[in-house]
């Protein structure tokens, strides 16, 4: 006889079958009253009314608990907001400013620190500036033309020069006679990235003012060419 239903999952199915049974029963009652079967069914369907509405309202019974409590809490919240508008305003302003400040700070950090530079091999970009040890030239910027001159004027470096420059990356005074081609410097930097302490990628190359061999064609006498490789270290290892 009675069989156990039911997981809530077939509630919809249950309702369908229930409704079907109800309509059949109505049809039979109509037939018993002398209607033709088609007429009886037709009348039963009319009498039952909107099946979908019935199903919908049964569904609502099963969902209403959550919906009702959400509505209740929302209403309570609105009432509270309206009851003390100044306090609400203060809270809203605090939240707005807090969220705004946080997102501003995060956007900055995201752009500066988290995101790789929008160039190929962005972690291998360097900043070059020059330094005059005698204080005659305050301009620390390296003009692009000068960089080209450096590259053109310096013969290909020996591997030893490159490795020497990377053994102590922080402040390595290059021997004046060492000439260093810019591209090979970069290559050596790339090698140095695997070294934990070169992580800062800061490399200062100096040539004393007396010796102008490497840079003489481009730099004014006594100026040092310094090279500082920024900050963005180890990106390509991730």
């Amino acid at each position: 006889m009675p069989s156990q239903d039911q997981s809530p999952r077939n509630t919809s199915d249950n309702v369908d079958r229930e409704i079907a049974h109800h309509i059949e029963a109505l049809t039979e009652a109509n037939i018993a009253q002398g209607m033709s079967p088609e007429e009886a069914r037709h009348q039963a369907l009319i009498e039952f009314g909107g099946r979908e509405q019935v199903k919908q309202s049964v569904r609502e019974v099963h969902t209403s608990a959550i919906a009702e409590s959400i509505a209740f809490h929302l209403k309570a919240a609105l009432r509270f907001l309206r009851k003390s508008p100044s306090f609400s305003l203060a809270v809203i302003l605090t939240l707005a400013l807090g969220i705004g400040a946080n997102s501003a700070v995060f956007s900055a950090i995201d752009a500066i620190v988290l995101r790789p530079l929008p160039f190929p091999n962005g972690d291998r970009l360097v900043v070059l500036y020059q330094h005059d040890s005698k204080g005659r030239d305050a301009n620390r910027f390296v003009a692009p033309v000068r960089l080209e001159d450096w590259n053109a004027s310096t013969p290909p470096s020996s591997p030893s020069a490159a490795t020497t420059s990377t053994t102590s990356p922080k402040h390595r005074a290059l021997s004046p006679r060492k000439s260093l081609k810019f591209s090979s410097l970069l290559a050596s930097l790339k090698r140095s990235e695997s070294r934990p302490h070169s992580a800062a990628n800061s490399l200062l190359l100096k040539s004393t003012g007396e010796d102008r061999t490497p840079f003489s064609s481009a730099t004014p006498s006594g100026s040092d060419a310094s090279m500082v490789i920024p900050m963005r270290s180890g990106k390509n290892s991730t």
Partner: protein
Amino acid sequence: MAPLEKTDLLQGTLDLLILKVVALGPVHGYGIAQRIRQISSDVLQVQQGSLYPALHRLEKRGWIAADWGESENNRQARFYRLSAKGRKQLVAEEETWNRLSQAVALILRTAE
């Protein structure tokens, strides 16, 4: 079968009527509607649109339980029966209803 004037049931009254009818023995939705109608001499007609939501609401509250079974004409139907919790609820609601209707009757008599 002439539909009588439909009497709106007070919210909550339908629950009481369903509990009372179901207390007579396992019965399916159609049977509940029929019995309410017959016992009230066609005064009360339960709309399907309120009957089935009410049945499921009561079932959800644990006042009635439902099982599939075979109806009198050998069809599968969902039979509702009263649970122990529902029996207590029925007693409480009957009391409430009696007090309410007596109070209303009292007012109607006294205010005449």
